[in-house]
């Protein structure tokens, strides 16, 4: 954009020289100083673009480059270690023929269930934070955000020690009631529990942002006009909070789809999530194209969800304080 706007002055420069040849030097230099100032002004007018450059470069080199490479690899013949070659679709055919879609199915199903549970659990929490916490909201925010700074591994291992045989729950109920719970790990529901636990803050914070968009006046007005609680919830609260709800849902769905540790530490191998298949294709399998093809499918699902949601959300309005 800046290149194009600079173009006319560049092209025009020699013409100026010809035009001012007969005039005094002083005047010509003043004219050129004006040109420089003009250019500087354009330069600073692009302050937004220039500020975006450092982060943009990082993302180009660390996000788009790698993703493009993954796409390239996904079309390479099985087991090839170079992204340059005759393209083929055999990796995608393998995914269907060798039952790799099973892990996809599990990951999708668990992500959907976890996201729905997260909405149900996080919504009342967000209401508490926005409408009841008042001045102490900041402290509660830190309280809920802090576990994010502890490695997922540690927290999931903690739950495993809690739910496993002879763990805290089993041992406590054994000594209190004389009957233990036995091992509660190594099944699908506990994996979903792990997903809900790990991603709760990712649902909660967007919901809080969304609910702060609901002006108390709007609720008040609806109530004065005779709306019931449920009508206020359905017709005022939900629509106004919808950007936050959409973002939280999207974030949790995508992250849960790509989750792997929950199945490892709580599921104990009872389900294989798709990312574990991707990981084994890259490591044990030494089959980069297959891992890439699986990644591409995962990325496509995530991208579809992102596009659908983000088209309905205005980021500026979401963050601006009222």
């Amino acid at each position, binding site marked *: *954009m800046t290149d194009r706007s600079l173009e006319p002055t560049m092209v025009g420069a020699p013409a100026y020289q010809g035009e001012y040849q007969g005039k005094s030097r002083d005047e010509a230099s003043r004219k050129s100083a004006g040109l420089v100032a003009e250019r500087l002004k354009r330069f600073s007018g692009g*302050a*937004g673009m*220039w*500020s*975006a*450059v450092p*982060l*943009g470069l*990082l993302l180009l080199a660390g*996000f788009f480059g*790698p993703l493009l*490479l*993954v796409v390239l*690899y996904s079309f390479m013949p099985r087991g090839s270690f170079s992204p340059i070659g005759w393209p083929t679709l055999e990796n995608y055919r393998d995914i269907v023929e060798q039952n790799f879609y099973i892990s996809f199915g599990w990951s999708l199903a668990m992500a959907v269930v976890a996201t729905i549970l997260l909405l149900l659990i996080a919504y009342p929490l967000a*209401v508490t*934070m926005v409408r009841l916490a008042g001045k102490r909201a900041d402290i509660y925010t*830190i*309280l*809920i955000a*802090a576990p*994010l*700074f*502890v*490695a*997922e*591994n*540690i*927290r999931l*291992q*903690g739950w495993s*020690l809690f739910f496993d045989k*002879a*763990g*805290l729950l*089993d*041992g*406590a109920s054994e*000594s209190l009631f004389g009957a233990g719970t036995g091992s509660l790990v190594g099944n699908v529901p506990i994996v979903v529990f792990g997903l809900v*636990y790990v991603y*709760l803050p990712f649902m909660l914070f967007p919901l809080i942002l969304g609910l702060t968009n609901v002006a108390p006046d709007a609720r*008040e007005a609806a109530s004065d006009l005779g709306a019931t609680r449920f009508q*206020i919830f359905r017709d005022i609260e939900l629509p106004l909070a919808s950007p936050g709800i959409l973002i939280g849902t999207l974030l949790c769905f995508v992250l849960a789809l*790509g*989750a*792997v540790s929950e199945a*490892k*530490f709580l599921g104990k191998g009872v389900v294989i999530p798709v*990312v574990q298949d*991707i*990981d084994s294709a*890259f490591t044990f399998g030494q089959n*980069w194209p297959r891992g*890439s093809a699986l990644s591409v499918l*995962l990325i496509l699902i995530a991208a579809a969800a*992102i596009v659908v949601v*983000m088209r309905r959300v205005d*980021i*500026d309005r979401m963050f*601006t304080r009222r």
Partner: protein
Amino acid sequence: MADIHPLTRRLLWLFFAVVSIALYLPMLVTALASLSRSRFFIFPVSRYSWKWYEDTLASQQIEQAAITSLIVAVMVALISVVLAFFGALAFARYDWKGRKSFQYLVLLPIFFPQAVLGLAVQLWLNTIGVEMSWHSTVFGQLVWIAPIATLVVAIQVFGYEPAFEDAARDLGATRWQAMRDITLPLLWPGIFSGFLFALLLSWSNFPFAYYTSGADVTIPEWLHAKMIGGYTPMVPAVGTLSIIAGAAVLVGGFSIAAFVKAILARKAARQRPA
């Protein structure tokens, strides 16, 4: 009646308390397990001891992992906060043509499964022939953490009044002076939070370290290897120490911020003419 019924209020608070406890429960169990003398965690704990902490502190491997984790976290936080400062201005302050696209661009890596992104970065570095070490981990983590830090700073920028900066410029301040005397001090809380966030997220990050660190090992990687390879009570011991370190940074950081805020407020009160 738009207000919440008192009974509903109580239920909401009760639910909030239960969830908050659940959030911290696994960490408490971890701490408990680290203090149990036996090789395997059995509740109720029959004998408590500090043995696993002594082993942990004596281990050179863990010491090295802690040093690597710390260096990576500090590097990631420092670079993130610089990228995030300018990124947040482009994200929220300046009105420019590509802004909407830039906003989506910044959000994308956050909305991305870390493990897949980590593998992609590994593949990329492998292909262009970069030797993997903690340096590449810094790069990998930046891809995910710098956008988050940008969002954190951007929240501050959205609440910031650009008119102050314009006023300074109108009164003859250069762009640099306006930046130093107006923009930076006003955005300081956001920048500081962004730094803390980046530091802590890097400290606890596993996927990027796992795929991009080569032979170097960070604390979350060490923990993962031990969890997969066979449980030892040093796992909860290292985990607990790592949690304590993170908590100390969090509490310390917020105390410093509160302290500075108090000092500035007192200064401002004194300067105000009587």
